């Protein structure tokens, strides 16, 4: 089976999307051909050529402003009329992960991917809505806080290889929300410090008149 894994992160390396797709690649196994595409560096024409003959297209991306990142959106907009010619009969699967805790906040973006399928004539397979996707590198996928992610990818890989559809699966990490929030806040402050900022400068209001600023 030939499967396209389309990375919709704007980051060339060290992305949560990349970690998730690598884990899915392992679960699909070496017996199947996986074509890797990067929406941040490949044109619509490049992607159409690369996914030629694929039976499954897996789009994975981070949630940006409640939707699809603009560079991936541009790619989807470009290929929507030609993708069925390139990979006729392919089933589309989507993995959306966000920086919030709740997986359900990815539902709107998953709907957009379904709408892409409607417009392009491709069949919708299944969507995963991954909460707290930034934790993907916190532990090996399938273990500890990433246990739910591993289980979801097991099922997704099975559906892809079987050419099956499945209900969208929305889930959170195996990690409490209050700790995720506290850890994220601590992480922001630590990164600010590395950048030479004081924590309170993170809340600067750069575009207001001086009298209205609270620094």
């Amino acid at each position, binding site marked *: 089976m030939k499967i396209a894994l389309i990375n919709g*992160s*704007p*980051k060339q390396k060290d*992305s949560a999307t990349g970690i998730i797709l690598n884990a899915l690649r392992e679960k699909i196994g070496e017996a199947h051909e996986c074509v890797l595409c990067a929406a*941040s560096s490949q044109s619509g024409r490049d992607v159409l050529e690369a996914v030629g003959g694929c039976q499954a297209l897996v789009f994975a991306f*981070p949630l*940006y*402003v*409640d*939707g*699809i*990142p*603009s*560079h991936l*959106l*541009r790619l*989807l*907009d470009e290929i929507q009329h030609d993708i069925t010619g390139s990979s006729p009969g392919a089933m589309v699967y989507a993995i959306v992960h966000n920086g*919030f*805790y*709740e997986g*359900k*906040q990815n*539902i*709107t973006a998953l*709907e*957009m*991917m*379904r*709408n*892409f399928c*409607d*417009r392009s004539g491709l069949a919708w397979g299944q969507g995963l809505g991954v909460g707290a996707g930034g934790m993907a590198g916190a532990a090996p996928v399938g273990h500890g806080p990433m246990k739910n992610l591993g289980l979801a990818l097991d099922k997704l890989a099975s559906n892809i290889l079987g050419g099956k559809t499945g209900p969208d699966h929305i889930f959170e990490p195996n990690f409490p*929300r209050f700790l995720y*929030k506290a850890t*994220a*806040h601590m992480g*922001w402050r630590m*990164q*600010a410090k590395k*950048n030479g*900022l004081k924590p309170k*400068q*993170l*809340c*600067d*209001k*750069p*575009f*207001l008149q001086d009298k209205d600023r609270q620094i």
Partner: protein
Amino acid sequence: MRKKLILHDLAREDAESLLPPESPEYSVFAATPSLHHCVGCFGCWLKTPGKCVIKDRGSDFGALMPLHDEIIVISRMVFGGLSPDAKAVLDRSIGFILPFFRIANGEMHHTRRYEKSPDLRYILYGPDINDREKETAQKLISGNALNFGAKNYSVSFHSTIQEIKEALA
């Protein structure tokens, strides 16, 4: 007087005929020519708080946001959301909010950087917008309003760009 910021992806000639001219009431920001897309660096949160670090006119929109009472986005609808050009502008504007989280409606969302947040209005156009895409757009603006801190929001759908002038009236 309510100050309104219009973000649009219209061709120049259409914008000139359909949109109000720049004035104390209206600011207009064109999403075209396309901006560089957000690269996910979080520099607008962690290096130059509130400002996008990419050096192009994209950071100008983020500077205008806190100075207005309403943001009106005029965009071709794509898959139930904004066009790539309009979306690139909003993706580049998350410095308007803080990286920190709050819990609202039982969900995690970002906290405000500025005390006041503009209302949000989407005017979406396309020749064959379907009901499913309209539902998606309703969810999108609801989520965007919550995350940008907008108290009031609305979305309307139009089959031709000529209807935009009426929608703005």
